[in-house]
């Protein structure tokens, strides 16, 4: 599928332009390609950082933050772990979840418990 492109003009610091020209020479790639690649990589990082920030501020859920950063939820959770960002669930929530879990598993135990043996008394008549 062909990508659509837009033209923009922007002012860049001279040392940044020099670095891009250097990469272009060394890699023998057009300067415009290097500019595009740099912006693409940069925006990915910016979105990642923004997603983490909004997750920590509780403005996004974990899947919302993963979506914003264009990451798989599992990878985003790993990233949060590497940054030492904890899942700050209040203790009260954990106690509530404990109670809910007990109730849920109680039902399972009831389902799995062996049925009571029904003993039929048979009247024995003497012949």
């Amino acid at each position: 599928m062909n990508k659509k492109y837009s033209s923009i003009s922007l002012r860049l610091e001279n040392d940044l332009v020099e670095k891009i020209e250097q990469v272009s020479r060394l890699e023998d790639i057009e300067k415009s390609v290097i500019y595009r690649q740099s912006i693409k990589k940069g925006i990915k990082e910016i979105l990642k950082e923004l997603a983490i920030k909004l997750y920590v501020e509780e403005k996004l859920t974990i899947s919302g933050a993963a979506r914003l950063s264009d990451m798989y939820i599992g990878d985003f959770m790993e990233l949060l772990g590497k940054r030492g960002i904890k899942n700050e669930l209040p203790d009260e929530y954990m106690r509530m979840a404990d109670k809910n879990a007990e109730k849920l598993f109680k039902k399972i135990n009831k389902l799995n418990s062996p049925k009571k043996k029904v003993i039929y008394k048979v009247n024995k008549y003497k012949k």
Partner: protein
Amino acid sequence: MKLVISDASTLILLTKSELILPLLSKFKIIIPNEVYLEILKGKEKGKQDAYQIDYLVKQNKILIKQPKEETVSLINNLCVLDIGELYAIALAKDLNLSILIDDKKGINTCNLFNIYFLTALQILKLLYKHKFVSKAKALNSLYNLKKNGRYKENEVKIIYDFLKGGYYE
């Protein structure tokens, strides 16, 4: 077989911690299509846990169901959630089932609508308590949950002490 709803993050956590199969021996998990699509994103990126979940969906161990649109709208009007959590919570409300969820905003919403919630830590504790996993396996799962679930130290310590003091070798 008892039914329970799950959102994507807890489903991934349980899979990474090798708790999904013991859980599925006693429960059927239901997810909305929106959660399934989040999982499939991991498959595109070659993630092993996503492949395992997709396999379980294809084996009908994990079922896909949709909530009513009016329930989705009701929750969406009151709470700001991402689409995955939104549909999973709406499904739990519609079917009157408990939900496996670790996200704080999601749990706030569950409280608002009186929906029973559990995190992956409770699942580990109870699978061990009811002898569905051994002590060695439970300790290994706890290590993985600590790493990926990012639970607070005191919560992990409570479960660790419980496993260490437990009876099921």
